[in-house]
C-alpha cells in the first residue's frame, strides 16, 4: 500500500518536472515562410527567376498595343470574341476591361517579385550579389515602365512587398516620380551589370542602357537619351545582322542585333485559366491563322502592302 503511494508520488513528480513547453502548438508550415527566405545565393537566384517570369506575360502588352493602333484589327472568332480586346480596337473601352486588368495585375506581380528580392537585399553576401540585385532593379524598372505607359500615375512602392491590408493606403504616385525611380534603378543597373551575361536571356548593361534611353525619350529628355543610347551604340557588343530577311526568323533569336529579348520556349504552354503561367509565347497561339490559333491581331491590307514596299526599298538599297 505504502509502495503504491510512493509510486503515485513518483509519477506525479516526473509529470511535474517534465511539464511541457508550448512548442507543439507552434507548427511550421510545409512550405518555407517567405520572411525566412534568402539564406543562400541559390535562393536569391531562384527568386530572381521568379521575377523574370512575368516578362513572358508581356505578350499581351504587345498585342493590345498593336490592336489599339490602326495597323491591325482585333480579329477573333467573331466581333464579340473577348469583349475587352474588341472594345480597345473600337476605342470604346471602359475601366472594366479584363485585358487591361491583366496587364495591371501581371506587371504589378512582376514589380512585387522584384521588390521581394530588394526587400531582403542586405540579408547575406555572396560574390554575384550586385549582379543579381542589378537584374532585379532592371526588372522593376521594366515593369514600372510598362505600367506608366499603360496607366499613367500608378502606385509606387519600392524595396518591399505590399502586404494584405496595406493596399487601401497606397495611393497613385505621379508618373514623374515613377519615372524618377526607373532612372535611379536603371543607372544603378548599368553600373552593376556586365556587358555580357553567361546565360542568354539575362539582362545586360546594354539592356539597361537601352531601357534608360527609352525612359528618357518618354519624358522628352532628348539630350540624356542621345547620350545613353550613343554610349550603348559605341560601346555595346552589338551590330546589325547582314540579312534583314532573316532578322525575325526562329533561328535568329538572340542575334547580334538583339539588346534585350523576352525568352520563350515551345515545350510548355498554358491553359486559359493562367495565361501568365505559360513558358511559351501565348501571342503565337492567339495571333496566327484561324483554325491554327485564335486569330486575333489581323493586319490591315495597307500595312501588308507598305511592308512589301519597305522590303523592296531595302533590297534596292543593298
Amino acid at each position, binding site marked *: 500500500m505504502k509502495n503504491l503511494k510512493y509510486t503515485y508520488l513518483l509519477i506525479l513528480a516526473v509529470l511535474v518536472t517534465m511539464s511541457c513547453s508550448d512548442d507543439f502548438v507552434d507548427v511550421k508550415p510545409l512550405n518555407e515562410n517567405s520572411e525566412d527566405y534568402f539564406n543562400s545565393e541559390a535562393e536569391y537566384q531562384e527568386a530572381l527567376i*521568379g521575377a*523574370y517570369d512575368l516578362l513572358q506575360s508581356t505578350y499581351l502588352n504587345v498585342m493590345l498595343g498593336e490592336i489599339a493602333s490602326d495597323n491591325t484589327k482585333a480579329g477573333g472568332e467573331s466581333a464579340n470574341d473577348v469583349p475587352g480586346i474588341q472594345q480597345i480596337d473600337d476605342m470604346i473601352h471602359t475601366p472594366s476591361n479584363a485585358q487591361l486588368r491583366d496587364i495591371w495585375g501581371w506587371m504589378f506581380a512582376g514589380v512585387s517579385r522584384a521588390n521581394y528580392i530588394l526587400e531582403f537585399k542586405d540579408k547575406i553576401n555572396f560574390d554575384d550579389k550586385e549582379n543579381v540585385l542589378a537584374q532585379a532593379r532592371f526588372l522593376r524598372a521594366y515593369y514600372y515602365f510598362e505600367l506608366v505607359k499603360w496607366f499613367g500615375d500608378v502606385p509606387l512602392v519600392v524595396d518591399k512587398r505590399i502586404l494584405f491590408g496595406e493596399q487601401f493606403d497606397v495611393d497613385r504616385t505621379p508618373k514623374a516620380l515613377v519615372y524618377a525611380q526607373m532612372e535611379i534603378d536603371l543607372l544603378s543597373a548599368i553600373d552593376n551589370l556586365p556587358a555580357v551575361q553567361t546565360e542568354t536571356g539575362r539582362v545586360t548593361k546594354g539592356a539597361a542602357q537601352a531601357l534608360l534611353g527609352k525612359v528618357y525619350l518618354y519624358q522628352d529628355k532628348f539630350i540624356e537619351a542621345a547620350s545613353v543610347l550613343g554610349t550603348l551604340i559605341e560601346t555595346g557588343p552589338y551590330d546589325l545582322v547582314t540579312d534583314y530577311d532573316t532578322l525575325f526568323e526562329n533561328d535568329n533569336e538572340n542575334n547580334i542585333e538583339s539588346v534585350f529579348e523576352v525568352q520563350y520556349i515551345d515545350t510548355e504552354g498554358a491553359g486559359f485559366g493562367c495565361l501568365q503561367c505559360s513558358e511559351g509565347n501565348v501571342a503565337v497561339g492567339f495571333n496566327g491563322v484561324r483554325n491554327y490559333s485564335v486569330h486575333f491581331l489581323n493586319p490591315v491590307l495597307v500595312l501588308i502592302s507598305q511592308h512589301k514596299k519597305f522590303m523592296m526599298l531595302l533590297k534596292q538599297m543593298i
Partner: protein
Amino acid sequence: MISDEAFLEDSSIVNFLKLRSSFGILGNDRIDEFKFVSTINGEGVYVFDDEIVVGSATGPIANPEIQWEEQRTFDIGLETRLLNNKINLTVDYFNRTTENLLLNVEASRILGNAAPGAGPPTVNAGTVRNKGLEFQIGYIENITDDLKFNVSYNFTTLDNEVLEVNNGIGYEVGGVFGIGQANRPSRMEVGQPIGVFYGLQTNGVFQSQAEVDAHPSQLALGANAQPGDLRFVDVNKDGVLNEEDRTFIGSPIPEVTMGLNLAVDYKNFDFQTYFFASIGNDIVRNYDRNDRITNKTIYALERWTGPGSTNTNPRVTTGATANGVFSDYFVEDGSFLRAQNMQLGYTFNEEKLNNIGLRNIRLYLSVSNVFTLTEYRGFDPTSSNGAPIGGGIDPGFYPNPRTFLLGTNVKF
C-alpha cells in the same frame, strides 16, 4: 418530453411528443492551413539558354488578420408520433448566423496576386444569416399482410441574407460569365442572398430602328444597338447604358427544397422511389458560343427575324453586339422536380429455393435520374460549381446520365 405529462400519458392519438431546442457555436475546419503566412509555393519559371529554369516565388497572398469563422445556430423543433406510431412528424425552425465567413475574394492586384502560382487571399468576408423551416412527415402502414407501405416527405425553406461585408466597399465579387468579360456576375452584398447575380436588366428586343433611336445609347456595352438586339434598362436613369446600370437579377439559392420517399411492398414485389425538388433558385446559362461553325442551341430557332417576330430572343449574328453582356436574358428559373431513383424488385419464395440450396434470390430493376421536370432550357438544372459567390452558373457541365441497372441478390 410533453408526451410524458399527465394529460398526454394515456392519449391514443399522441404517442410521442417532444419539444427540443439547441444553440451552438461552431468553427469551420474546412479551410486551408497557414493562410496567415506568406510561403514560397508560387511558380517562378523562365527560360535561359533555351532551357526552362525553375526558380521560386511566393504563393497566394497571406492574410495575417485571418480569424476563425463562427457559426451560431439556434434551433427549436417539435418531434411527434401519432396514431399508434404510424405517423411521425418533425418541425424545426433554424436560424444560423455565420460570422467572419471565410472566403477567397478578389483583392487589389498591386499585391501581386495575379502572379503564376499566387492567388487571392482568404479573408473573413462578413456575416451571413440562414433561417428557415424544416418539416418532415412520415407514414407507415401495413394495410394487409401482403400490402405495406412507407412514405415520407420533407421540405426545407431557406432565407439567406448577407448582413455584413467587411471589405469597406460593401460587396465582394465572384464567378465567371462568358469569355473575357471583366465584370464578375455574382456578388456578396448586404441585404441580398450570398452569390446574388448582378447584371443588366433587359426589357425585350428592339423591333425597329425608331425604337433604338428612342432609347439611350448602348455603345458603352460593346456596340451600338440594332433592331433585333436586347433592349437594356437604364436603371440609374442617366441617359446612357453602361456597367453602372447593373442590378440584382436573380439568386442561385432555392427558396424551398423538398424530397419524397415512397416504399411499397406487395406480396413478393417491392418498390422504392425518391423524388427531389428545388424551387425558386435561378440558374445562369453560360455556354452560348457565337462562332460561325459552332452548334446553336435550339432557341436560336425562335430568334428575332424581323419586326414583331419575338420580343424574347435577340437576333443571331456574328457581328458586334452587346447581347452577350451578362444580363437577365441569361438568368432562368432553375426550379426542378427530379425522380432521382426508382427500383422494382421481386423476391422468390424461400421454401422452393431451399430445395435447391439457396436462401434467397431477389431480382431488381433500378433506374436513376428517371426524369426531370423543369423550365430551364439548359442540359441540367443541377449544374453548379457550388461556389458561395459564383455558384449557379452553368458553363455547360456534362449532364447527369440516366442509368438502368438490372440486378440479382443471391444468398446461399
